[in-house]
């Protein structure tokens, strides 16, 4: 008697589990997943929460890195792949299979440990520092302290943008690599002579010194006009062969004022609608006439 | 020599061996034996340590299956049970066993006795209660535990635990009860009580008992087999073994000159 009861328990448990797995195979219309860039994750997460609440649907948002996002959306295993880069800038992904949706712009600012005594650098100085040609802060008017370079990890979108917009063809000197914004923050704050770069949203921290470049202040307005030159788009890629109504609606929602004006400002991104210039894959910037097309 | 080991008692035979030998690996621990055990009698197996009497006993209900190789025949109920065709679980239900160390389950007294019964499909509460009482009475334990049947069996004293093991063994109504030095872990008072119990059980059960205690063998058993170094030297009425042994070795042993 006791035995058969236990059997029922097991059978029902196994049933629930298999049913759960089955239900996953035909992931229903009420749920999609967006995976990828950790830099874009907070925005998509908050938007997904707001949208999901309003429409009774679930949008799962995962980090994992731009590479993960692009791989998975190309394979069709998720609906949206978040990326800091143009898909063409990553090797190994069939770019023609994906559709680009730009949802925001991120400005990137060099940050230093406040102890170095430098608040402004010229673009050439910045380049020389990261190329390893300037190794002491006194060479750029700071204290007698050696420069400690902290890069983002290879393959990081932030690093790619920084190197494209600052270094151009010059290659960077070897240095520490940190894989996350958080580690960069902590290390630059704590280490004398450290310099690195962060997205605007991560740079507003006590103990971090943001640098001006050629006396241009790193503000959103300056990014929209390309006076501040280090910035990139945040992309959400979808797969051409996989259409879902929910995906489309969610991407449309991301272009509404609720997101583009309120949420984006709150989280420290820059609205795609405010941009007065366009940047192409190679980093060339051209002015834009009103009304950004898709 | 082997021929003289066989005695055909004037009784119906419960179980008998024919050229049964036991090997541990390559080593022959027990040489070919031919013994038959009379029904409703107590037979004692005596002999010094290492004489293979326990090995012999444990072979009778195939408890040695995993550790040793048993050759020859064991005849029970008209078939040779030393065969892979025999259902050992069924066999062991019919040939029960009580061990040297009391080994009650970590369950209540009641559950100790009913566990195997329930497994056999006896579910009726009244029947179970009745068997519990019968078995405990049979093992002379009833009066001591009847108010505490829900108590853990491990809380009983050693002597009580051993009698509980007997009660547990007879609850499944075996035909034969094998006892492997059942009193060796007990104090004299418990031993006396146990022996009393065995004498009473003789009315309904065939018992084969390994013992190191000469007095115990003399007091309780009807027949006695003397084992020495893996061979049976003598098998006869207990009185003959102790008073008039035919083999000198037996005499030396029962008089305590070695052992």
């Amino acid at each position, binding site marked *: 008697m006791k035995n058969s009861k236990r059997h029922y328990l097991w059978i029902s448990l196994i049933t629930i*589990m298999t*049913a*759960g*797995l089955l*239900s*996953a195979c035909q992931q*229903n219309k009420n*749920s999609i*997943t967006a*995976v990828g860039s950790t830099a874009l*994750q*907070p925005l998509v*997460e*908050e938007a*997904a929460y707001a949208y*999901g*609440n309003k429409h009774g649907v*679930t949008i*799962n*948002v*995962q*980090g*994992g890195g731009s590479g993960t996002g692009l791989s*998975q959306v190309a*394979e069709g*295993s*998720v609906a949206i792949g978040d990326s800091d880069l143009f898909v063409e800038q990553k090797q190994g992904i069939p770019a023609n299979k994906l559709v680009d949706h730009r949802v925001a712009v991120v400005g990137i600012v060099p940050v230093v440990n406040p102890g170095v005594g430098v608040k402004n650098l010229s673009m050439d100085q910045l380049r020389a520092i990261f190329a390893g040609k300037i190794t002491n802060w006194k060479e750029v008017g700071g204290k007698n302290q050696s420069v400690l370079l902290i890069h983002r990890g290879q393959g990081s979108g932030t690093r790619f943008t920084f190197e494209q917009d600052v270094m151009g063809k010059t290659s960077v000197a070897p240095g520490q690599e940190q*894989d*996350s*914004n*958080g*580690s960069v923050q902590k290390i630059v704050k704590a280490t004398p002579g450290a310099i690195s770069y962060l997205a605007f*949203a*991560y740079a507003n921290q006590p103990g971090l010194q943001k640098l001006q470049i050629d006396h241009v202040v790193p503000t959103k307005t300056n990014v929209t006009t390309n006076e501040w030159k280090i910035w990139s788009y945040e992309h959400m890629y979808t797969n051409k062969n996989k259409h879902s109504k929910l995906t489309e609606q969610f991407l449309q929602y991301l272009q509404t004022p609720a997101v583009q004006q309120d949420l984006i400002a*709150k*989280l*420290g991104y820059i609205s795609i609608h405010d941009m007065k210039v366009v940047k192409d894959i190679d980093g060339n910037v051209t002015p834009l006439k009103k009304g950004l097309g898709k | 020599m082997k021929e003289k080991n066989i005695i055909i008692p004037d009784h119906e035979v419960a179980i008998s061996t024919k050229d049964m030998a036991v090997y541990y690996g390559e080593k022959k621990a027990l040489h070919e034996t031919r013994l038959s055990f009379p029904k409703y009698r107590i037979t004692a197996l005596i002999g010094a340590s290492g004489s293979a009497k326990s090995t012999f006993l444990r072979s009778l209900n195939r*408890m040695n299956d995993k550790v040793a190789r048993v050759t020859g025949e064991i005849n029970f109920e008209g078939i040779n049970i030393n065969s892979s065709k025999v259902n050992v*679980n*069924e*066999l*062991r*239900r*019919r040939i*029960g066993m009580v*061990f040297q160390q009391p*080994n009650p*389950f*970590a*369950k209540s007294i009641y559950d100790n006795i009913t*566990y*195997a019964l329930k*497994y*056999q499909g006896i579910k009726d509460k009244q029947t179970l209660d009745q068997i519990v009482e019968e078995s405990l009475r049979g093992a002379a334990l009833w009066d001591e535990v009847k108010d505490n049947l829900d*108590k*853990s069996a*491990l*809380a009983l004293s050693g002597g009580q635990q051993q009698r509980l093991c007997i009660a547990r*063994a007879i609850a*499944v109504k075996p035909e034969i009860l094998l006892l492997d030095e059942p009193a060796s872990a007990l104090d004299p008072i418990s031993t006396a009580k146990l022996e009393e119990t065995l004498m009473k059980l003789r009315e309904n059960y065939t018992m084969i008992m390994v013992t190191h205690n000469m007095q115990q063998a003399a007091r309780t058993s009807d027949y006695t087999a003397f084992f020495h170094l893996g061979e049976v030297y003598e098998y006869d009425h207990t009185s003959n073994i102790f008073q008039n042994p035919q083999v000198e070795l037996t005499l030396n042993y029962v008089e305590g000159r070695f052992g």
Partner: protein
Amino acid sequence: MDAKKVDRIAKRVIQTMVLMIVVLLVLILGYILVTGLSQTKLDFIFKISKAAQAGGGIRDQLFNSLYLLVLALLISVPLSLGAGIYLAEYAPDNWFTRMLKTLIEILSSLPSIVVGLFAYLVLVIKFQIGFSIIAGAMALTFFNLPLLTSNIENAFRNLPDSQREAGLALGLSQWKMIKGILLPRIVPSIITAVILSSGRIFGEAAALIYTSGQSAPILNYANWNPFSPDSPLNIMRPAETLAVHIWKLNSEGLTPDADAISAAASAVLIIVVLLFNISAHYFGEKLEQKLTAKR
């Protein structure tokens, strides 16, 4: 120097080293608890986490950790029971058994990141299960399985043979004997082992980042339908656990109070692990007493 003096000095040195370690451990524990609990109000346990604003909590992460733990145990306990029973009671001494034992040892020493990546590659990508609790639970099973299996095997082996004989001599099948006689006796050991391994599971992050994922969809605790995406019971939803949350706050935290929340979450984590440990010892002893019942 005479031997007596050496003896005294050796004892003194050892005592000093023990004292150093105890102080170190107390400092670590104290630091985590003090920094963790002083900066945040305790009600953050019941608040949802926030991506960018201050005042986020860890409600869903805590639940995810517990739910993941339960699922991982649901998978790994029966499996390790089966394997443990096989090794202790059935396994003959042959090449298969030796291989099984070696592989279990290997499994137990695999780096968690390697297991995590394997689970990511196979479960999340190949089988398209996606980032989900169930993928995480399966990854955790890999860690739990070898530890629990050898614990259970040893527990069985430590039981006296007399118990097996008692059962078999009554005509019980070996299986029934194992299940009905031996198993109940090792329940205390199993419970202790399970609770202790729970502590380890609870703090695991490396294997979960790429399996159960790094985001926690907001849960609706009133929804008990395990197939609905916002139900806490849904095993196919991604689920950031407490340990992963701490890792993420440290690496990508956007909220102004990321440090405070991560310290507080660490404190909560340690307290939960502490509770696991205490209850493991408590239950282990209680059950042992109840079974042996020396009244």
